[in-house]
């Protein structure tokens, strides 16, 4: 149980900057998830908190102590490594109890705690196996058990559930959440799994290229992404982006046009080039228009590929007249859209359909900087102008 604070932490290796001016402020007992593309610096951030790598600049606090220069053993942390890192010359029991034995716990207490941890990760009866006699998922669970026996102040978990099957994954997810509730330990968690990030975390920190993009509660990241990167990264399938030019009360985007309330987004008139972002579930067939909060005027498109997923159908849409030349260059070059519809919908490939966008859930991004301009192009929409930075900082 401790607050964790990173101030302007940077880490560069000879040729790459792995982490750039990272500011994070975790409340006591908070569950934070770091997400971002591979190589964006998530593991490096964890390592700096763990004390395994020294930041090039910046300071780190855990609790009230500055720990920037303390060795890992004095930081009160436990870590599950991305590469698991079990000690191959020790059996499961010795692996799990390694830290306790180092701290000279009495034998009975060690036994009790190891037993307990092994139960949580469903490893009972395997305590005398060697790591090379375990499956990948079992090893991963040993690693989790090793980190939870010590009741540390801060958990650092680098993709701890990556090797588990879907069922065990969900089990372990709830198990970890229960553990978090019970121990009230601060957890920094890295995952590539959207569902884990959305369901487990108090806040999600989205990182790209070593830079923090946004740190906010999951739904805020989803509904009010701070910039185009966050918008595209959070959510699966990912958001549609369409470049557009700003007209008077109207956004012009390869063939589609979209009206907006000038009063709501006054600031737009000063810009010319924007990017429209709309999630697949915020596009509706015109007959379902009523489901949309603030439907736009209908747009005609042609369906392309259909992907039935069971609980919904993903429909790829292309602008009408694809493959033909027109004044704006080859239509093919323009991006299509992805829409998700109810599985009962009667729809076929290469069908001309009319769609509407939910104007309340349309995001506009600056095409140059990628920063969000507004979420929703209607009256009373959430404006992100200028305040987006401030909001992210305030959360810090």
């Amino acid at each position, binding site marked *: 149980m401790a607050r964790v604070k990173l101030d302007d932490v940077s880490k560069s290796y000879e040729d790459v900057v792995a982490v750039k001016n990272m500011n994070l402020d975790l409340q006591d007992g908070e569950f934070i998830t770091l997400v971002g593309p591979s190589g964006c610096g998530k593991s490096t951030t964890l390592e700096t908190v763990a004390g395994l790598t020294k930041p090039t600049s910046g300071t780190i606090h855990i609790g009230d102590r500055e720990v920037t220069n303390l*060795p*890992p*053993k004095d930081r009160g942390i436990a870590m599950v490594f991305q590469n698991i890192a079990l*000690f*191959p010359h020790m059996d499961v029991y010795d692996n799990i109890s390694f830290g306790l034995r*180092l701290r000279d716990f009495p034998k009975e207490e060690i036994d009790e705690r190891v037993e307990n941890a092994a139960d949580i990760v469903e490893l009972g009866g395997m305590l005398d196996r060697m790591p090379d006699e375990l499956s990948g998922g079992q090893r991963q669970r040993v690693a989790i058990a090793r980190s939870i026996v*010590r009741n540390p102040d801060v958990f650092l978990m680098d993709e701890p559930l990556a090797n588990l099957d879907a069922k065990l994954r969900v089990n372990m997810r709830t198990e970890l959440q229960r553990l978090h509730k019970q121990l009230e330990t601060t957890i920094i968690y890295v995952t590539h799994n959207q569902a884990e990030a959305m369901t487990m975390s108090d806040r999600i920190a989205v990182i790209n290229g070593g830079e923090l993009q946004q740190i906010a509660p999951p739904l805020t990241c989803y509904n009010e992404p701070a910039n185009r990167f966050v918008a595209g990264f959070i959510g699966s399938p990912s958001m549609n982006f369409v470049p557009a030019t700003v007209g008077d009360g109207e956004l012009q985007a390869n063939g589609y046009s979209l009206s907006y309330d000038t009063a709501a987004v006054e600031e737009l008139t000063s810009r010319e080039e924007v990017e429209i972002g709309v999630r697949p579930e915020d596009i509706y067939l015109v007959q379902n228009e009523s489901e949309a909060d603030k439907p736009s005027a209908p747009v005609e498109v042609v369906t392309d590929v259909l992907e039935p997923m069971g609980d919904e159908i993903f429909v790829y849409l292309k602008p009408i007249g694809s493959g033909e030349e027109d004044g704006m260059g080859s239509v093919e070059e323009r991006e299509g859209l992805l829409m998700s519809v109810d599985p009962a919908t009667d729809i076929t490939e290469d069908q001309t359909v009319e769609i509407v966008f939910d104007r309340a859930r349309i995001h506009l991004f600056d095409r140059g900087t990628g920063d969000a301009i507004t979420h929703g192009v209607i009256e009373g929409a959430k404006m992100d102008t200028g305040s987006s930075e401030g909001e992210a900082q305030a959360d810090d």
Partner: protein
Amino acid sequence: MSIDAQDHDDAETLDDQDEESKNRVQAWAADWIRNPQKAYTVMGVFLGGVLLTTTLFPLYWLFAVAMAPPGQTNIPLIPTRIDLYAFVDIFQQVPFARFMFNSLFYATTVTVVVILVASLAGYAFGRLDFRGKLPLLFSLLVLSWFPPATLFLPLFRAFNQQVKMLGLFTLPTEIYGTPGAVIAPLSAFTMPLAVFILMTFYAQIPDGLEDAARVEGSSRIGALFRVIMPLSAPGVATAGILTFITVYTEFFFSFLMTGDKASEWAPIVNGVLAFQSRYTVRYDLQAAASLVAIVPVAILVVLAQDKIVSGLTQGALKE
């Protein structure tokens, strides 16, 4: 290409011949040509036999000498009598056990010192990045090229408090004639090889394991001894055995830096030589003593071989 043809030819010729005219050698040859595997087996056994004989014969010869009665110089190849009394006598005539203890003491102490220090050095060279690493490693290598004998005189005088170390101070006590006079220089001479061996092994232990140990609560040095060293067991055993044998069989320093008596920390060489007085030489006892002296090394090698397990890092990390 033509081997098949030859095979065939030979086979035919042999087939053509009468059973009687086939002498034994020809039959063998034919058999071996048809089954080359047999020939290889025989050759392998033969070569192995030669190797074994050349290595084991000296030992057998020592045994034969030990069996001969005192004073007999004409040693028969096969002992005329088996009399193991020489093996008992060596411990009664001189304090041979003490001589052996001295040598074992040198070997053990040096091995422990070398493994400890070389582990730290091997860790630094193998797993850390620091400025001047390469020059330092190179100078260690250069150091190991010095013939130890060239250092004998300066060390002899320093240990006798006759010269100032680095021109600054003389040693506080006379080290000559104490175990330190053997242990210090021999540790230094065996160190470079041990450092190189351990460095190579320690460098191969994945960083993740050390990280895990450190997060779990051990220091870097703790991780070295709890995780890195056990996982490098083959390397540690190799370096240890090499050092042990080098020191145990070392002659120059251990002979010259100590007195001649067992109580003066004389090594096993003095023990063997003690059966030689001004007028008589007990070759039988010297031979017996030499055989006994080999025993600890033999035991050590057999034991350590058992300890060497490779592939220990399997299952440690996710590939």
